[in-house]
Protein backbone atom coordinates (compact mmCIF):
# COMPACT_ATOMS: atom_id res chain seq x y z
CA UNK A 1 0.00 0.00 0.00
CA UNK A 2 2.80 2.37 0.84
CA UNK A 3 5.28 0.73 -1.45
CA UNK A 4 6.27 3.92 -3.19
CA UNK A 5 6.90 5.66 0.12
CA UNK A 6 8.52 2.90 2.08
CA UNK A 7 12.10 3.99 1.79
CA UNK A 8 14.54 2.23 4.07
CA UNK A 9 15.67 4.58 6.82
CA UNK A 10 19.30 4.02 6.01
CA UNK A 11 18.81 5.10 2.46
CA UNK A 12 17.65 8.58 3.48
CA UNK A 13 20.62 8.86 5.80
CA UNK A 14 22.98 7.41 3.22
CA UNK A 15 21.81 9.70 0.47
CA UNK A 16 22.18 12.71 2.70
CA UNK A 17 25.65 11.63 3.85
CA UNK A 18 26.81 11.00 0.28
CA UNK A 19 25.83 14.53 -0.53
CA UNK A 20 27.55 15.95 2.53
CA UNK A 21 30.68 14.00 1.68
CA UNK A 22 30.61 15.28 -1.90
CA UNK A 23 30.19 18.85 -0.67
CA UNK A 24 32.99 18.51 1.84
CA UNK A 25 35.33 17.16 -0.82
CA UNK A 26 34.42 19.87 -3.30
CA UNK A 27 34.74 22.65 -0.74
CA UNK A 28 37.05 21.54 2.07
CA UNK A 29 36.76 23.04 5.53
CA UNK A 30 39.63 25.49 5.61
CA UNK A 31 42.49 23.03 5.57
CA UNK A 32 42.38 22.12 9.21
CA UNK A 33 39.71 19.47 9.00
CA UNK A 34 39.15 16.48 6.79
CA UNK A 35 36.27 14.08 7.16
CA UNK A 36 34.86 11.15 5.27
CA UNK A 37 33.45 7.67 5.58
CA UNK A 38 35.80 5.01 6.91
CA UNK A 39 34.75 2.68 4.12
CA UNK A 40 32.55 3.22 1.10
CA UNK A 41 30.33 0.33 2.18
CA UNK A 42 29.14 2.01 5.34
CA UNK A 43 28.24 5.66 5.07
CA UNK A 44 27.12 5.71 8.72
CA UNK A 45 30.65 5.69 10.09
CA UNK A 46 33.08 8.47 9.37
CA UNK A 47 36.46 9.51 10.53
CA UNK A 48 37.45 13.13 10.96
CA UNK A 49 40.94 14.52 11.35
CA UNK A 50 41.10 17.84 13.11
CA UNK A 51 44.09 20.08 13.45
CA UNK A 52 44.42 21.92 16.74
CA UNK A 53 43.53 25.60 16.21
CA UNK A 54 46.31 28.20 16.23
CA UNK A 55 46.96 29.86 19.55
CA UNK A 56 45.68 26.96 21.65
CA UNK A 57 47.57 24.27 23.55
CA UNK A 58 46.15 21.82 21.01
CA UNK A 59 48.79 22.99 18.56
CA UNK A 60 51.89 20.91 19.07
CA UNK A 61 54.74 22.84 20.62
CA UNK A 62 57.29 20.88 18.71
CA UNK A 63 59.47 23.81 17.82
CA UNK A 64 59.92 24.77 21.48
CA UNK A 65 61.08 21.28 22.30
CA UNK A 66 63.35 20.61 19.39
CA UNK A 67 64.37 24.11 18.62
CA UNK A 68 63.41 23.50 15.03
CA UNK A 69 60.97 25.89 13.49
CA UNK A 70 58.38 23.21 12.91
CA UNK A 71 54.79 24.45 12.85
CA UNK A 72 53.19 21.06 12.54
CA UNK A 73 50.10 21.05 14.72
CA UNK A 74 48.48 18.29 16.66
CA UNK A 75 46.11 16.31 14.49
CA UNK A 76 43.34 14.53 16.31
CA UNK A 77 41.26 11.67 15.02
CA UNK A 78 37.58 11.43 15.83
CA UNK A 79 34.97 8.88 14.93
CA UNK A 80 31.58 10.12 13.73
CA UNK A 81 28.74 7.64 14.09
CA UNK A 82 25.45 8.45 12.38
CA UNK A 83 22.08 7.09 13.49
CA UNK A 84 19.91 5.40 10.87
CA UNK A 85 17.42 8.28 11.12
CA UNK A 86 20.08 10.91 10.43
CA UNK A 87 19.58 13.87 9.87
CA UNK A 88 16.49 13.86 12.10
CA UNK A 89 18.84 12.97 14.91
CA UNK A 90 22.43 14.12 15.26
CA UNK A 91 25.52 11.93 15.03
CA UNK A 92 27.92 11.26 17.87
CA UNK A 93 31.51 12.32 17.77
CA UNK A 94 34.24 10.56 19.75
CA UNK A 95 37.88 11.52 19.86
CA UNK A 96 39.98 8.39 19.68
CA UNK A 97 42.23 8.52 21.64
CA UNK A 98 40.32 10.81 24.01
CA UNK A 99 41.41 14.41 24.17
CA UNK A 100 41.76 16.36 27.40
CA UNK A 101 39.20 19.15 27.13
CA UNK A 102 36.43 20.49 29.39
CA UNK A 103 33.75 19.64 26.84
CA UNK A 104 34.96 16.15 26.01
CA UNK A 105 34.05 13.26 28.27
CA UNK A 106 36.98 11.20 29.55
CA UNK A 107 35.91 8.49 27.09
CA UNK A 108 36.39 10.88 24.19
CA UNK A 109 32.74 11.70 23.45
CA UNK A 110 32.26 15.32 22.44
CA UNK A 111 29.57 17.14 24.41
CA UNK A 112 28.35 20.26 22.67
CA UNK A 113 24.82 21.54 22.43
CA UNK A 114 24.64 21.25 18.65
CA UNK A 115 25.06 17.46 18.96
CA UNK A 116 22.30 16.92 21.49
CA UNK A 117 19.31 15.02 20.16
CA UNK A 118 16.10 17.03 19.87
CA UNK A 119 14.28 17.37 23.15
CA UNK A 120 17.19 15.96 25.10
CA UNK A 121 18.75 18.36 27.53
CA UNK A 122 21.05 16.36 29.78
CA UNK A 123 22.73 19.39 31.23
CA UNK A 124 19.56 21.39 31.84
CA UNK A 125 20.92 24.44 30.27
CA UNK A 126 18.50 26.91 28.84
CA UNK A 127 17.85 27.23 25.18
CA UNK A 128 20.32 29.98 24.46
CA UNK A 129 22.68 27.49 22.87
CA UNK A 130 22.42 26.13 19.39
CA UNK A 131 20.64 22.80 19.06
CA UNK A 132 20.70 20.06 16.49
CA UNK A 133 18.34 20.48 13.60
CA UNK A 134 18.31 18.71 10.25
CA UNK A 135 19.61 21.93 8.72
CA UNK A 136 22.90 21.28 10.48
CA UNK A 137 25.40 18.82 9.14
CA UNK A 138 28.92 17.49 9.44
CA UNK A 139 30.37 20.77 8.27
CA UNK A 140 28.62 23.02 10.76
CA UNK A 141 29.27 20.63 13.65
CA UNK A 142 32.97 20.31 12.87
CA UNK A 143 33.26 24.08 12.72
CA UNK A 144 31.59 24.24 16.16
CA UNK A 145 34.03 21.65 17.45
CA UNK A 146 36.90 23.72 16.14
CA UNK A 147 35.69 26.78 18.03
CA UNK A 148 35.03 24.59 21.06
CA UNK A 149 38.69 23.56 21.03
CA UNK A 150 39.69 27.21 20.91
CA UNK A 151 37.19 28.32 23.54
CA UNK A 152 36.13 25.70 26.07
CA UNK A 153 32.74 26.29 27.63
CA UNK A 154 33.06 25.39 31.30
CA UNK A 155 29.47 26.45 32.00
CA UNK A 156 28.33 23.16 30.54
CA UNK A 157 31.33 20.95 30.92
CA UNK A 158 31.55 17.23 30.30
CA UNK A 159 34.80 16.45 32.10
CA UNK A 160 34.25 18.03 35.51
CA UNK A 161 37.84 17.56 36.70
CA UNK A 162 39.12 19.15 33.55
CA UNK A 163 36.69 22.07 33.95
CA UNK A 164 37.99 22.72 37.44
CA UNK A 165 41.56 22.56 36.24
CA UNK A 166 40.81 24.91 33.37
CA UNK A 167 39.15 27.39 35.69
CA UNK A 168 41.54 27.23 38.64
CA UNK A 169 44.87 26.50 37.06
CA UNK A 170 44.95 27.27 33.39
CA UNK A 171 48.74 26.97 33.00
CA UNK A 172 48.62 23.44 34.40
CA UNK A 173 45.68 22.62 32.12
CA UNK A 174 47.63 23.84 29.13
CA UNK A 175 50.72 21.93 30.23
CA UNK A 176 48.75 18.69 30.46
CA UNK A 177 47.15 19.22 27.08
CA UNK A 178 50.55 19.83 25.51
CA UNK A 179 51.92 16.74 27.16
CA UNK A 180 49.02 14.74 25.79
CA UNK A 181 49.48 16.18 22.34
CA UNK A 182 53.18 15.33 22.51
CA UNK A 183 52.35 11.74 23.42
CA UNK A 184 49.79 11.51 20.64
CA UNK A 185 52.33 12.61 18.11
CA UNK A 186 54.80 10.13 19.53
CA UNK A 187 57.49 12.68 20.21
Amino acid at each position, binding site marked *: *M*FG*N*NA*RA*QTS*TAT*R*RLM*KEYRDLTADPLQDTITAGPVSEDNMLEWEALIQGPEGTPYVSQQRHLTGADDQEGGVFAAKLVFPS*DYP*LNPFTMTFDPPLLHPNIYPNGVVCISILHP*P*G*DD*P*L*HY*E*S*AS*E*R*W*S*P*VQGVRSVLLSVLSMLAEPNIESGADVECCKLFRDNKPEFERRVREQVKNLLGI
Partner: protein
Amino acid sequence: MGDRHTPPDSPLPNTPAKKSKTDSSTEKDEMSTASTTSAPHSAPVAPPAGDVAAAPGATGAPTADAPPRVIDENTDMSTLTDQEIMKLMEGMDHQEDVMNKPLISTPVPLLIIREEYVRGSPQILKKLDWLQEHGWDQVWRARGDGDCFYRSFTLAYLLRILHSPDPALEANLAYDAIQRALPAMEDSGFDKDLYEEFLDPLSSLIRSFAEERETTSNEYSIVQTLQDAERSNCIVVALRLLTSSYIRTHSSLFSPFLLSPTTFLPLSTDEFCRQEVEPCGKEADHAQIMALSEALSIGIRVAYLDRSEIGGQGEESVINWVEFGKDTTEEGRPLTLLYRPGHYDVVTKDVPPKIPDV
Protein backbone atom coordinates in the same frame (compact mmCIF):
# COMPACT_ATOMS: atom_id res chain seq x y z
CA MET B 1 -2.07 17.06 53.01
CA GLY B 2 -0.45 20.43 52.92
CA ASP B 3 2.26 19.33 55.34
CA ARG B 4 5.67 19.83 53.90
CA HIS B 5 7.96 16.88 54.12
CA THR B 6 10.72 17.97 56.46
CA PRO B 7 11.97 14.95 58.34
CA PRO B 8 13.19 16.12 61.74
CA ASP B 9 16.26 13.96 61.36
CA SER B 10 17.02 15.10 57.84
CA PRO B 11 20.80 15.14 57.44
CA LEU B 12 20.65 18.10 55.10
CA PRO B 13 19.60 21.54 56.28
CA ASN B 14 17.89 22.53 53.05
CA THR B 15 14.33 21.37 52.71
CA PRO B 16 13.52 19.63 49.47
CA ALA B 17 10.37 21.72 49.26
CA LYS B 18 12.43 24.64 48.03
CA LYS B 19 13.33 22.78 44.93
CA SER B 20 11.57 24.10 41.92
CA LYS B 21 14.23 24.15 39.28
CA THR B 22 17.41 22.57 40.48
CA ASP B 23 20.34 21.36 38.55
CA SER B 24 21.02 17.70 38.29
CA SER B 25 23.70 17.71 40.98
CA THR B 26 21.34 18.97 43.69
CA GLU B 27 18.83 16.48 42.55
CA LYS B 28 21.32 13.70 43.02
CA ASP B 29 22.12 15.03 46.49
CA GLU B 30 18.49 14.76 47.37
CA MET B 31 18.22 11.30 45.98
CA SER B 32 21.02 10.25 48.29
CA THR B 33 19.20 11.97 51.13
CA ALA B 34 16.20 9.88 50.32
CA SER B 35 18.24 6.73 50.40
CA THR B 36 19.84 7.62 53.72
CA THR B 37 16.49 8.31 55.32
CA SER B 38 15.19 4.99 54.13
CA ALA B 39 18.31 3.22 55.38
CA PRO B 40 16.88 2.58 58.88
CA HIS B 41 14.62 -0.02 57.27
CA SER B 42 17.38 -2.49 57.63
CA ALA B 43 18.43 -1.31 61.07
CA PRO B 44 17.35 -3.67 63.82
CA VAL B 45 17.06 -0.85 66.35
CA ALA B 46 13.53 0.14 67.31
CA PRO B 47 13.54 4.00 67.39
CA PRO B 48 14.66 4.57 63.78
CA ALA B 49 12.01 2.14 62.64
CA GLY B 50 9.46 4.33 64.36
CA ASP B 51 10.78 7.31 62.42
CA VAL B 52 10.32 5.46 59.20
CA ALA B 53 6.73 4.76 60.04
CA ALA B 54 6.19 8.40 60.89
CA ALA B 55 7.77 9.74 57.74
CA PRO B 56 5.11 8.68 55.22
CA GLY B 57 2.43 10.01 57.54
CA ALA B 58 4.04 13.41 57.64
CA THR B 59 4.00 13.66 53.87
CA GLY B 60 0.33 12.91 53.70
CA ALA B 61 1.07 10.08 51.28
CA PRO B 62 -0.99 6.94 51.54
CA THR B 63 0.51 3.96 53.33
CA ALA B 64 3.48 2.33 51.72
CA ASP B 65 1.42 -0.45 50.16
CA ALA B 66 -1.21 1.76 48.58
CA PRO B 67 -0.60 2.66 44.93
CA PRO B 68 0.49 6.27 44.37
CA ARG B 69 -2.33 8.57 43.34
CA VAL B 70 -2.69 9.58 39.75
CA ILE B 71 -1.26 13.00 38.98
CA ASP B 72 -2.42 14.70 35.81
CA GLU B 73 -3.10 18.14 34.37
CA ASN B 74 -5.93 18.34 36.80
CA THR B 75 -4.01 17.95 40.03
CA ASP B 76 -3.78 21.04 42.17
CA MET B 77 -0.08 21.77 42.28
CA SER B 78 -0.17 22.99 45.86
CA THR B 79 -1.22 19.53 47.05
CA LEU B 80 1.80 17.78 45.59
CA THR B 81 4.05 16.17 48.15
CA ASP B 82 7.78 16.41 47.76
CA GLN B 83 8.06 12.77 46.77
CA GLU B 84 5.50 13.37 44.07
CA ILE B 85 7.34 16.45 42.86
CA MET B 86 10.56 14.49 42.78
CA LYS B 87 8.90 11.73 40.83
CA LEU B 88 7.56 14.21 38.32
CA MET B 89 10.96 15.81 37.97
CA GLU B 90 12.50 12.42 37.28
CA GLY B 91 9.83 11.83 34.69
CA MET B 92 10.80 15.06 32.98
CA ASP B 93 14.35 13.84 32.58
CA HIS B 94 13.49 10.55 30.99
CA GLN B 95 10.21 11.24 29.24
CA GLU B 96 9.95 7.55 28.52
CA ASP B 97 6.21 7.56 29.09
CA VAL B 98 5.75 10.31 26.56
CA MET B 99 8.04 8.70 24.02
CA ASN B 100 6.09 5.44 24.12
CA LYS B 101 2.85 7.08 23.10
CA PRO B 102 1.81 7.08 19.46
CA LEU B 103 2.86 10.17 17.54
CA ILE B 104 -0.79 10.88 16.87
CA SER B 105 -3.90 9.01 17.94
CA THR B 106 -7.06 7.90 16.25
CA PRO B 107 -9.90 10.17 17.35
CA VAL B 108 -11.14 9.93 20.91
CA PRO B 109 -14.38 11.47 22.18
CA LEU B 110 -13.98 14.92 23.69
CA LEU B 111 -15.61 13.42 26.79
CA ILE B 112 -12.37 11.59 27.51
CA ILE B 113 -10.56 14.92 27.77
CA ARG B 114 -13.42 16.16 29.94
CA GLU B 115 -12.92 13.17 32.22
CA GLU B 116 -9.42 14.47 33.00
CA TYR B 117 -10.84 17.77 34.19
CA VAL B 118 -13.83 16.49 36.12
CA ARG B 119 -12.33 17.42 39.45
CA GLY B 120 -10.59 20.46 38.07
CA SER B 121 -11.22 24.00 37.01
CA PRO B 122 -14.90 24.79 36.36
CA GLN B 123 -13.88 27.31 33.69
CA ILE B 124 -12.22 24.57 31.67
CA LEU B 125 -15.21 22.28 32.09
CA LYS B 126 -17.46 25.04 30.88
CA LYS B 127 -15.34 25.43 27.76
CA LEU B 128 -15.27 21.70 27.11
CA ASP B 129 -19.04 21.56 27.47
CA TRP B 130 -19.40 24.40 25.04
CA LEU B 131 -17.26 22.54 22.50
CA GLN B 132 -19.30 19.39 23.00
CA GLU B 133 -22.59 21.23 22.58
CA HIS B 134 -21.38 22.82 19.38
CA GLY B 135 -20.37 19.55 17.81
CA TRP B 136 -16.63 19.61 18.47
CA ASP B 137 -16.69 16.15 19.91
CA GLN B 138 -13.59 14.47 18.49
CA VAL B 139 -10.02 14.91 19.62
CA TRP B 140 -6.98 13.53 17.84
CA ARG B 141 -4.23 13.52 20.39
CA ALA B 142 -0.70 14.39 19.39
CA ARG B 143 2.23 13.14 21.42
CA GLY B 144 3.57 15.72 23.87
CA ASP B 145 7.08 15.73 22.47
CA GLY B 146 7.40 19.38 21.48
CA ASP B 147 6.37 18.65 17.90
CA CYS B 148 2.68 18.42 18.74
CA PHE B 149 1.70 21.64 16.98
CA TYR B 150 3.34 20.61 13.71
CA ARG B 151 1.95 17.10 13.88
CA SER B 152 -1.53 18.33 14.76
CA PHE B 153 -1.29 20.82 11.92
CA THR B 154 -0.40 18.04 9.47
CA LEU B 155 -3.29 15.87 10.55
CA ALA B 156 -5.79 18.72 10.44
CA TYR B 157 -4.41 19.86 7.07
CA LEU B 158 -4.84 16.40 5.56
CA LEU B 159 -8.27 15.87 7.14
CA ARG B 160 -9.34 19.18 5.70
CA ILE B 161 -8.47 17.95 2.22
CA LEU B 162 -10.10 14.58 2.81
CA HIS B 163 -13.36 16.06 4.08
CA SER B 164 -13.66 18.83 1.53
CA PRO B 165 -16.45 18.68 -1.03
CA ASP B 166 -13.85 18.13 -3.75
CA PRO B 167 -10.76 16.43 -2.29
CA ALA B 168 -8.92 16.29 -5.59
CA LEU B 169 -9.27 20.02 -6.13
CA GLU B 170 -8.36 20.79 -2.54
CA ALA B 171 -5.30 18.56 -2.82
CA ASN B 172 -4.17 20.41 -5.91
CA LEU B 173 -4.63 23.73 -4.15
CA ALA B 174 -2.60 22.46 -1.21
CA TYR B 175 0.10 21.23 -3.54
CA ASP B 176 0.23 24.64 -5.21
CA ALA B 177 0.41 26.38 -1.84
CA ILE B 178 3.47 24.32 -0.95
CA GLN B 179 5.08 25.05 -4.30
CA ARG B 180 4.49 28.77 -3.78
CA ALA B 181 6.28 28.58 -0.44
CA LEU B 182 9.41 27.06 -1.91
CA PRO B 183 11.11 30.24 -3.17
CA ALA B 184 11.20 31.47 0.43
CA MET B 185 13.07 28.28 1.35
CA GLU B 186 15.58 29.04 -1.37
CA ASP B 187 15.87 32.65 -0.18
CA SER B 188 16.48 31.47 3.37
CA GLY B 189 19.52 29.55 2.19
CA PHE B 190 18.08 26.09 2.71
CA ASP B 191 19.56 23.49 0.45
CA LYS B 192 17.11 22.37 -2.23
CA ASP B 193 17.97 18.69 -1.82
CA LEU B 194 17.48 19.06 1.91
CA TYR B 195 13.99 20.51 1.94
CA GLU B 196 12.78 18.42 -0.99
CA GLU B 197 13.80 15.30 0.87
CA PHE B 198 11.73 16.35 3.89
CA LEU B 199 8.78 17.58 1.87
CA ASP B 200 8.56 14.39 -0.13
CA PRO B 201 6.35 12.39 2.29
CA LEU B 202 3.88 15.27 2.61
CA SER B 203 3.82 15.95 -1.12
CA SER B 204 3.22 12.32 -1.99
CA LEU B 205 0.37 12.10 0.51
CA ILE B 206 -1.24 15.16 -1.02
CA ARG B 207 -0.67 13.78 -4.51
CA SER B 208 -2.43 10.58 -3.51
CA PHE B 209 -5.48 12.68 -2.61
CA ALA B 210 -5.31 14.48 -5.93
CA GLU B 211 -5.30 11.16 -7.73
CA GLU B 212 -8.17 10.02 -5.52
CA ARG B 213 -6.50 6.80 -4.59
CA GLU B 214 -9.08 5.04 -2.48
CA THR B 215 -6.48 3.07 -0.58
CA THR B 216 -4.72 6.06 0.90
CA SER B 217 -7.49 8.63 1.05
CA ASN B 218 -9.14 7.83 4.33
CA GLU B 219 -8.76 8.85 7.95
CA TYR B 220 -7.20 5.58 8.93
CA SER B 221 -4.39 5.77 6.43
CA ILE B 222 -3.65 9.40 7.31
CA VAL B 223 -3.25 8.45 10.96
CA GLN B 224 -1.22 5.43 9.98
CA THR B 225 1.17 7.54 7.94
CA LEU B 226 1.54 10.09 10.71
CA GLN B 227 2.25 7.31 13.20
CA ASP B 228 5.15 6.13 11.11
CA ALA B 229 8.11 7.81 12.77
CA GLU B 230 10.19 8.40 9.69
CA ARG B 231 7.56 9.97 7.49
CA SER B 232 5.89 11.76 10.37
CA ASN B 233 9.13 13.34 11.52
CA CYS B 234 10.10 14.26 7.97
CA ILE B 235 6.84 16.17 7.67
CA VAL B 236 7.46 17.88 11.00
CA VAL B 237 10.86 18.99 9.75
CA ALA B 238 9.39 20.14 6.44
CA LEU B 239 6.80 22.27 8.25
CA ARG B 240 9.47 23.65 10.54
CA LEU B 241 11.52 24.67 7.51
CA LEU B 242 8.47 26.25 5.87
CA THR B 243 7.77 28.15 9.09
CA SER B 244 11.37 29.20 9.46
CA SER B 245 11.67 30.36 5.86
CA TYR B 246 8.50 32.43 6.17
CA ILE B 247 9.78 34.14 9.31
CA ARG B 248 13.20 34.67 7.72
CA THR B 249 11.73 36.23 4.59
CA HIS B 250 9.28 38.41 6.58
CA SER B 251 11.76 39.43 9.21
CA SER B 252 10.53 42.98 9.67
CA LEU B 253 7.00 41.74 10.32
CA PHE B 254 8.04 39.19 12.91
CA SER B 255 11.11 40.65 14.58
CA PRO B 256 9.26 42.55 17.34
CA PHE B 257 7.68 39.28 18.46
CA LEU B 258 10.67 36.98 18.39
CA LEU B 259 11.43 36.37 22.05
CA SER B 260 13.19 33.54 23.79
CA PRO B 261 10.50 31.46 25.54
CA THR B 262 12.79 30.94 28.53
CA THR B 263 14.40 34.33 29.04
CA PHE B 264 11.79 36.52 27.27
CA LEU B 265 14.65 38.46 25.75
CA PRO B 266 14.43 39.46 22.10
CA LEU B 267 16.21 37.20 19.65
CA SER B 268 17.40 38.03 16.16
CA THR B 269 15.44 36.41 13.35
CA ASP B 270 18.29 34.06 12.62
CA GLU B 271 18.72 33.09 16.28
CA PHE B 272 15.01 32.55 16.73
CA CYS B 273 14.74 30.34 13.67
CA ARG B 274 17.81 28.33 14.52
CA GLN B 275 16.90 27.87 18.19
CA GLU B 276 13.12 27.82 18.30
CA VAL B 277 11.85 26.79 14.89
CA GLU B 278 14.25 24.47 13.07
CA PRO B 279 15.22 22.01 15.85
CA CYS B 280 12.71 19.23 16.48
CA GLY B 281 11.11 19.15 19.91
CA LYS B 282 10.83 22.93 20.18
CA GLU B 283 7.31 24.06 20.97
CA ALA B 284 5.53 26.37 18.57
CA ASP B 285 4.21 29.68 19.82
CA HIS B 286 2.16 32.42 18.19
CA ALA B 287 4.94 33.53 15.84
CA GLN B 288 5.45 30.03 14.45
CA ILE B 289 1.72 29.36 14.06
CA MET B 290 1.19 32.69 12.35
CA ALA B 291 4.10 32.03 10.00
CA LEU B 292 2.99 28.55 8.99
CA SER B 293 -0.57 29.71 8.53
CA GLU B 294 0.60 32.50 6.22
CA ALA B 295 3.18 30.36 4.42
CA LEU B 296 0.53 27.84 3.35
CA SER B 297 -2.34 30.38 3.19
CA ILE B 298 -4.46 28.39 5.55
CA GLY B 299 -6.63 29.64 8.38
CA ILE B 300 -6.10 28.15 11.83
CA ARG B 301 -8.43 28.47 14.81
CA VAL B 302 -7.09 27.41 18.16
CA ALA B 303 -9.53 26.74 21.00
CA TYR B 304 -7.77 27.82 24.18
CA LEU B 305 -8.52 25.59 27.13
CA ASP B 306 -7.11 27.88 29.76
CA ARG B 307 -8.55 28.98 33.04
CA SER B 308 -9.42 32.45 31.84
CA GLU B 309 -12.97 33.49 32.65
CA ILE B 310 -14.49 34.66 29.41
CA GLY B 311 -17.37 36.89 30.32
CA GLY B 312 -20.25 38.12 28.18
CA GLN B 313 -23.56 36.57 27.33
CA GLY B 314 -22.87 35.52 23.75
CA GLU B 315 -22.17 31.86 23.20
CA GLU B 316 -19.05 32.49 21.14
CA SER B 317 -17.42 34.12 24.09
CA VAL B 318 -17.38 31.02 26.30
CA ILE B 319 -14.25 29.72 24.67
CA ASN B 320 -11.40 31.74 23.37
CA TRP B 321 -10.70 30.90 19.72
CA VAL B 322 -7.38 32.39 18.72
CA GLU B 323 -7.34 32.87 14.98
CA PHE B 324 -4.46 32.84 12.56
CA GLY B 325 -4.37 33.49 8.85
CA LYS B 326 -6.63 35.21 6.42
CA ASP B 327 -9.79 33.19 6.29
CA THR B 328 -10.92 31.75 9.59
CA THR B 329 -14.61 31.83 8.86
CA GLU B 330 -16.54 28.61 8.86
CA GLU B 331 -16.72 28.77 5.04
CA GLY B 332 -12.93 29.00 4.83
CA ARG B 333 -12.77 25.68 6.67
CA PRO B 334 -9.88 26.62 8.94
CA LEU B 335 -7.89 23.98 10.79
CA THR B 336 -9.16 23.62 14.34
CA LEU B 337 -6.75 22.82 17.13
CA LEU B 338 -7.28 22.39 20.82
CA TYR B 339 -4.73 24.12 23.04
CA ARG B 340 -4.02 23.28 26.61
CA PRO B 341 -1.08 25.13 28.11
CA GLY B 342 1.99 23.64 26.49
CA HIS B 343 0.16 21.24 24.21
CA TYR B 344 -1.78 21.09 20.95
CA ASP B 345 -4.23 18.46 19.72
CA VAL B 346 -6.67 18.47 16.84
CA VAL B 347 -10.36 18.95 17.57
CA THR B 348 -12.94 18.19 14.91
CA LYS B 349 -16.62 17.71 14.46
CA ASP B 350 -17.47 14.10 13.86
CA VAL B 351 -19.38 14.94 10.71
CA PRO B 352 -17.55 17.36 8.45
CA PRO B 353 -19.36 20.68 8.71
CA LYS B 354 -21.48 21.46 5.67
CA ILE B 355 -23.82 24.07 7.05
CA PRO B 356 -22.41 26.81 9.26
CA ASP B 357 -23.94 26.41 12.69
CA VAL B 358 -23.40 29.96 13.87
